[in-house]
């Protein structure tokens, strides 16, 4: 029987490649401690029912609070509405800019960062003009979704722009048109499946922004999840820690959901190439 041998030099080189250096491990541990120590402290604090006695008492109180459920569901509904409005508005826009108006891209880049420049307070003041034109929005939480679309614009635009850059939009569009596809079928069946990861990224960032947005909802007197977190933070220290952990788990869950969704659907990679199934 022929024996398989490995050249000693090759084996040593491979072992060297596998063994991480001391400094690599050191910085990795430092970074992990930076994030994990506060998290651990918060978890411990949120579980402390009495000195040296632990349990889920504060978590149970949070979940039993009807205000928690209503504020969480309101924020979740607003997040979904914002995602849908943002994608419906921005996917065709970014597509057309890439396809027909590439010279407009620098202008789009500039417009997309405007929400960073305009303070939320100024946005709220600006809304008074909207209420005079569309008075039915006064008191309706829908106004928040419209404002959040603007807040999320930099992230939605950047994510979709990166997705479109990774594929050859023009050639794919022309290839689809040459076999008879009108523009909307090209967008739905050819372009969107190939920027799926970018769309999911935009949706997730929107979710994260809306779930954590406080200033505008507070100024417009809506009890969103962030307003509820602030209220609990001011009144109940233990419940605030538990709420922070719940919020963290929900965010983490959404991120994992995005990760598995993009893997399961074989979304387009950076080079616009489908992931092997």
């Amino acid at each position, binding site marked *: 029987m022929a024996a398989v041998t490995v050249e000693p030099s090759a084996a040593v080189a491979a072992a060297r490649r596998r063994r991480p250096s001391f400094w690599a491990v050191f910085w990795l541990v430092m970074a992990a401690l930076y994030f994990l120590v506060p998290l651990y402290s918060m978890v411990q604090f949120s579980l402390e029912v009495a000195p040296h006695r632990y349990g889920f008492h504060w978590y149970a109180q949070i979940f039993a609070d009807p205000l928690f459920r209503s504020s969480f569901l309101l924020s979740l509904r607003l997040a979904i509405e914002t995602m849908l409005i943002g994608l419906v508005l921005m996917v065709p826009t970014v597509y057309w800019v890439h396809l027909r108006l590439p010279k407009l891209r620098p202008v789009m880049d500039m417009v997309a960062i405007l929400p960073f420049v305009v303070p939320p307070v100024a946005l709220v003041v600006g809304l008074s003009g909207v209420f005079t034109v569309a008075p039915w929005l006064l008191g309706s939480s829908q106004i928040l979704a419209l404002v959040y679309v603007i807040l999320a614009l930099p992230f939605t635009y950047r994510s979709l722009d990166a997705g479109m850059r990774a594929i050859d939009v023009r*050639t*794919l569009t022309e*290839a*689809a*048109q*040459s076999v*008879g596809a009108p523009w909307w079928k090209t967008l739905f069946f050819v372009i969107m499946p*190939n920027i799926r990861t970018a769309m999911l990224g935009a949706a997730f960032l929107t979710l994260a922004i809306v779930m954590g947005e406080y200033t505008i909802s507070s100024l417009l007197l809506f009890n969103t999840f962030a307003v509820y977190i602030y209220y609990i933070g001011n009144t109940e220290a233990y419940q605030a820690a538990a709420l922070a952990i719940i919020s963290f788990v929900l965010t983490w869950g959404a991120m994992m959901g995005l990760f598995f969704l993009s893997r399961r659907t074989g979304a387009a990679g950076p080079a616009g*190439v489908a992931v092997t199934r």
Partner: protein
Amino acid sequence: MAKLELRGIRKEFGEVTALEGLSLEVGSGEFVSLLGPSGCGKTTALRIVAGFERPTGGELLVNDQDVTHVPANRRNMGMVFQAYSLFPNMTAKQNVEFGLRVRGADRAERHRRASELLELVGLSARADRYPHQLSGGQQQRVALARALAIQPAVLLLDEPLSALDAKVRVQLREEIKRIQTQLGITTLYVTHDQEEALSVSDRVVVMSEGRLEQVGVPADIYRNPRTPFVAEFVGTMNRFDGRVEGPDAVAIGSTGTRIPVLEPHGRGVGEPVLVLIRPESVGLEELPNGAAPAGGLMEATVLLHTFLGAVTRMGLESPVGTLIADLPSVRALTLSPGTRVGIRIDPSGVRLLSP
């Protein structure tokens, strides 16, 4: 099968004129190539036919119907692109089915047609592969199948082989020709590769700076170029300034060396002409040491050899300047650099043009 006609097509991009009144007819089932260097307007012409560009002027007709303003997706023209253009989210088969799917064909029909076409391009076994799992040549075959699936009136090919390596390029161009002949589909092919154009086309259209230089069958384009541009772009030419010496001879170079000509040029004695000689029309005979060339021969010295396979291209130093000659490699090997040779020019390979 459809007849395609371009009537005075003009295209301007700002101040740049890409096409200056291009007129061309492509008959039913004909394979016509647009050949020219980069920037000559050949791709613009193809994109106008496909409907991706609007002409500034002129008309485009398919079967005598004006389609100049018909959108690309309603023209029924299949196109294969230079860049790999398969949809990355679809398998080879789904790519081929796509055109039928958007037209509302039922699943059985789509399946049957896609299988048929993948069989035609020799990729049945790879129907379920994604584009990134296929080689460049295979991707272009699938793109061809996708373009043919909709039974297009005209097949358009925009330098489909330029991204492929040499061997695959030759295989695929032969395959494109086989399929085109088998289906009898009217085809417009764009390339900058003269060998490609001459080998697959029924007719070749040579273009330069937005203008049509010459249209003809490949052999005619090669043997009888009508402009200095065509002569130099298609194949290799020895080019000299000369003057007419009589009905059967011209003089070239500062020495006034006489070259025999056959063609009835109808020019007066002393009239300046451009003399073009194909390298394969230059014959060589080795001169014995110290011997003078016999009558009709011009003396030259071998400068260098370029081995091209069956043929070897030789650079020669002659009284009229540097000449290029193509010789069978077996013969060329006996004439090493420095060898004195006598040059005999075949009059049938000499072409005269107005300077």
